[in-house]
C-alpha cells in the first residue's frame, strides 16, 4: 500500500504525464504558427484566395491547439512549487530567472499578439494584421528558448555557486545559463522537430482531402508545402541531434551509455549502434541484436575510433565521486545507483530516430509521386500519408522521455537527486488525488480536442464571403473582412 503512496514516484508520474501532455501542444503551436504565418504572407503578397483559405483552415487547428497549450502550461509552472518545493527553494535563484524571463519577454508578447491575430481580422490593416501572426511565432520561439535554457540547467548545471549558508544554488553568470551548450543544441533540435510535426499535419490533411478528390488545388499546395517543410526540418533535426549527442556525451556520459545500453566501455569498431536488440528484462544481457559497427562511437564522439564509456565504469566513477566524500548527503542517491532505467532510454532513443525518419521518408516519396501536378495515386498511398501525422509527435514525446529519464537519478545533474527535490510537507495521498484529477481532465480534453481538430480539418477550407457579389473565381471581388472576424 505504501508503495502506491510514495510521493516521489507519484510526483514523477505527475510531472511526466503533465509534461508529455503539454508537449503535444507546444511543438504543434511553434511549428504551425510559422506555417500559418507563411501562408498568410503568401496571401498578402500574391492576393491569391487559396492562401487565405488555407490560412483560415490551419489557423483554426492552431487555435484549438493553442488554448490547450496555455492551460496545460500553467500546470507546469505551478507543479514545481506544489510537488517539488525542495527543488524550487534550492534552485529558485537560478532556475527561476529563465522562467521569469520567459514570462516577461516571450509569453506576454505571444499571448497578446495571438489575441490580436484571432480577433483583429476586421480591425487591423492587412499588413499590421500579418505582423501579429509573425510576432506570435517569434514569441513562441523565444518562449521555447528560455524554457530549454531552464531545462538545460537541470541537464548540465552551469553558471551557479553553492551557498552553504543558505543551503541553495545561486546565480553566478546568467550568460552561462542562457548559453549553456545543452540549450544551444537542444533549441534548434526542438524547433526543427516542431516544424516537422506541423509539416506532417499539413501532409496528412492534404492526403485526406486528395484521397477524396476535393479542394484539389489548395490541397496539392498544402501537400507539397508540408512535405518540403518536413524534409528540410528532418535534416535540421538530424544535424542538431548529432551535435546534441556530442554535447550529451560530454556532459552526461551515463545518458549516452544508457541510450546504447552499453555496459562496458568500448571504442572504434566495438562501439557499435544496435538497431534492434533483444535482451533479458533488466537489459544487462543481450540475446540477439542487429548492430552497425563504429556508429555509436561516431554519434558520441564525432569520430569513428572514439571511446564511449560504459555504464559499469561510469557507475563506479560516480559512486566514488558522489557517495564517498563529506558532502555525500547532498548528492548520493539512497540506493546508490546512478543508472537510469536502461530499457526505457534504449528504446526511446531508437523510436525517436526511427519515427522521425519514417515520416521524412513518406514525405520524400510523396513529393516524388506528386511531381508535375500528379495526384492520381492509389488510395492506399494516401492512407499511408494520412497516418504519418502522429509520427513526429510520438518522436518528440519519446525524445523527451529519453532526455528526462536519462537524467535520472538526478533532478539537477551532479547537484541534487530527484528524491531530494520533493515537497516535504505534501502527503502521498494529496499527490495521488492531483495525479488522478489531471489524468481524468487531460484524458477527457484529449478526446474533445482531437475530435474538434478532426472535425475542423474534415470540413476543409472555409468559404470566403465577399462584398459586391464577386464570383470568387477570378479574385476580382473584394474580400469582406467583416465576415471574416473570428467570433466565439
Amino acid at each position, binding site marked *: 500500500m505504501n508503495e502506491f503512496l510514495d510521493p516521489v514516484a507519484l510526483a514523477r508520474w505527475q510531472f511526466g504525464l503533465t509534461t508529455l501532455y503539454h508537449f503535444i501542444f507546444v511543438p504543434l503551436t511553434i511549428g504551425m504558427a510559422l506555417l500559418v504565418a507563411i501562408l498568410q504572407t503568401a496571401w498578402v503578397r500574391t492576393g491569391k484566395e487559396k492562401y487565405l483559405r488555407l490560412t483560415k483552415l490551419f489557423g483554426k487547428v492552431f*487555435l484549438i491547439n493553442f*488554448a*490547450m497549450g*496555455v*492551460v496545460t502550461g*500553467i*500546470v507546469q*509552472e*505551478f507543479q*514545481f*512549487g*506544489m*510537488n517539488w*518545493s*525542495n527543488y*524550487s*527553494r534550492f534552485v*529558485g*535563484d*537560478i*532556475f*527561476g*530567472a529563465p522562467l*521569469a*524571463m520567459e*514570462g*516577461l*519577454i516571450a*509569453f*506576454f*508578447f505571444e*499571448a497578446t*499578439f495571438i*489575441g*490580436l491575430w*484571432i*480577433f483583429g481580422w476586421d*480591425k487591423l490593416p492587412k499588413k499590421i494584421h500579418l505582423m501579429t501572426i509573425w510576432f506570435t511565432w517569434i514569441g513562441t520561439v523565444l518562449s521555447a528558448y528560455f524554457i530549454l535554457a531552464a531545462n538545460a540547467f537541470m541537464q548540465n548545471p552551469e553558471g551557479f555557486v553553492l*551557498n552553504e549558508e543558505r*543551503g*541553495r544554488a*545561486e*546565480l553566478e553568470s*546568467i550568460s552561462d545559463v542562457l548559453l549553456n551548450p545543452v540549450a544551444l543544441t537542444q533549441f534548434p533540435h526542438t524547433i526543427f522537430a516542431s516544424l516537422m510535426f506541423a509539416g506532417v499535419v499539413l501532409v496528412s490533411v492534404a492526403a485526406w482531402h486528395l484521397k477524396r478528390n476535393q479542394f484539389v488545388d489548395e490541397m496539392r499546395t498544402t501537400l507539397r508545402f508540408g512535405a518540403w517543410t518536413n524534409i528540410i526540418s528532418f535534416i535540421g533535426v538530424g544535424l542538431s541531434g548529432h551535435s546534441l549527442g556530442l554535447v550529451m556525451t560530454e556532459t552526461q556520459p551515463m545518458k549516452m551509455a544508457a541510450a546504447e545500453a552499453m555496459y562496458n566501455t568500448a571504442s572504434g569498431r566495438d562501439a557499435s549502434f544496435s538497431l534492434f536488440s533483444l535482451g533479458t528484462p533488466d537489459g544487462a544481457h543481450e540475446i540477439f541484436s542487429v548492430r552497425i559497427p563504429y556508429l555509436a562511437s561516431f554519434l558520441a564522439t564525432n569520430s569513428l575510433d572514439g571511446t564511449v564509456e560504459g555504464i559499469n565504469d561510469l557507475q563506479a566513477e560516480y559512486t566514488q565521486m558522489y557517495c564517498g566524500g563529506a558532502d555525500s548527503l547532498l548528492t548520493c542517491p539512497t540506493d546508490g545507483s546512478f543508472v537510469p532505467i536502461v530499457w526505457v532510454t534504449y528504446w526511446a532513443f531508437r523510436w525517436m530516430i526511427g519515427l522521425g525518419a519514417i515520416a521524412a521518408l513518406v514525405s520524400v516519396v510523396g513529393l516524388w509521386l506528386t511531381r508535375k501536378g500528379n495526384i492520381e495515386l492509389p488510395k492506399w498511398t494516401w492512407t499511408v500519408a494520412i497516418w504519418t501525422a502522429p509520427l513526429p509527435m510520438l518522436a518528440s514525446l519519446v525524445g523527451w522521455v529519453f532526455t528526462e529519464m536519462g537524467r535520472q537519478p538526478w533532478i539537477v545533474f551532479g547537484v541534487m537527486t530527484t528524491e531530494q527535490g520533493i515537497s*516535504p*510537507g*505534501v502527503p502521498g495521498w*494529496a499527490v495521488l*488525488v*492531483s495525479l488522478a*484529477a489531471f489524468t481524468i481532465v487531460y484524458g477527457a*480534453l484529449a478526446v*474533445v*480536442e482531437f475530435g*474538434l481538430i478532426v*472535425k*475542423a480539418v474534415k470540413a476543409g477550407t472555409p468559404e470566403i464571403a465577399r462584398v459586391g457579389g464577386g464570383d470568387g473565381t477570378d479574385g476580382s471581388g473584394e474580400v469582406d473582412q467583416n465576415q471574416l*472576424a473570428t*467570433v*466565439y
Partner: protein
Amino acid sequence: MELTTVWFLIVGVMLIGYFVLDGFDFGVGMSLPFLGKTNTDRRVLINTIGPVWDLNETWLIVAGASLFAAFPEWYATMFSGFYLALLLILIALILRGVSFEFRHQRKGVKWTRWFDQFIFWGSVLPPLLWGVAFANLVQGLPIRAVEGGGWLYEGTLLTLLNPYGLLGGIVVMLLCFTHGLVFVALKTVGEMRDNARKMAKNVGLVTIVLAAAFLVWTIVMNLSNPNIGLIITCAAIAAVALIGGWVANLAGREGWAFAGNTVTIAFALLTIFSALFPNLMISTFGGENTMSVVGAASSQKTLELMTWVAVFTLPLVLAYQAWTYWVFRKRLTHDMIPAETPAEATV
C-alpha cells in the same frame, strides 16, 4: 530602496495587474447564467472578453514565475502548502480556458451548456480561492522554519477555511463579479447594457457591505502593526473608490464605474501588502518562524538581473497590451454575432 523591497512591489504590481484584468473576465464568466438568457446573449458576453482574457491570464503566469525567481522560498512554501486549493484553481482555469475556445466549435444545446457550466464555475472558484489564500497570509499561518533552510506549512486545506479567510474569498469573488458586470455594461448596448447595470447596482451593494466588513476586520486585526497608518489609508481609498464606482454606475457612467472598481481592487491588494510587509508569510508559531521578504528573497545578483529585465520589458508589455484594448475598444452588439441555426437559438 532595497532590491528585495523593489521586488516585493513588482510582484505586487503583477498581482494587481492579474486581479484587475483577469478579475473582470472572471466577473463576466460569473454573469453568464444571469445575463445570458439566450445563446446569442451568452455569445455576446463571452465575446466582450474574447480578445483579452488570455492575455489577462498571462499576468498570473508571469507573477508566478517572478515569485519563483525573486522569492523562491515564498513560492515553494506557499505552493506546496496550499496544495489542494491550488489544484482546484488549476482545474478550474483549465476547464474555463478551453471552454472559450471549444464552446463554439460544435452546434448543439447540450454541448454549449457543458462549456457554459465550466465557464461559470471556472470563473467563481479561482477568485474565491485566491481570496481565501491572501486573507490567510494576512491572518497568519501555521508555518515553521526548518533547520538548514526553508519553511514548512503544517496546516491543511481546512486550516484555510476560517471565518476571516472565507470572508476574504467571498469579497474577492464579489469584487470580480461587480467589476465584470460593469465591464459588460461598458462593452455592450441596449438591453444587455441596462441589465448589466441593474445587476451591478444590486451586487455592488452587497459587495460594499462585505468589503467594508473585511477591511474593518483587517484594520482591527492589525492595530499593533507598524504599518497601520498605511493600512488604514489604503483601505479607505479602496472603500471610497468602491462607493464612487457604485454611484458612477447608477449615473450610467460605466467608464468611471470601471475605473472605480479598478482602484478598489488595486488598493484592497495594497491593504493586504501593507499588512504583510516586511513579511511574506506570518507564522502563528511566533516570530522566529515568520518568513520575511529578505529571508525569502533570491540573491542580490538574481534580483539585479531581474530588475533590468523588468525595467525594460514591463513598459513595453503595458504598451502593447494597452494597444490591444484600444483595438478592441468598440462596444459589441448582437448584430456582430453571426446568425445561428434555429435549433440552438433558443435555450
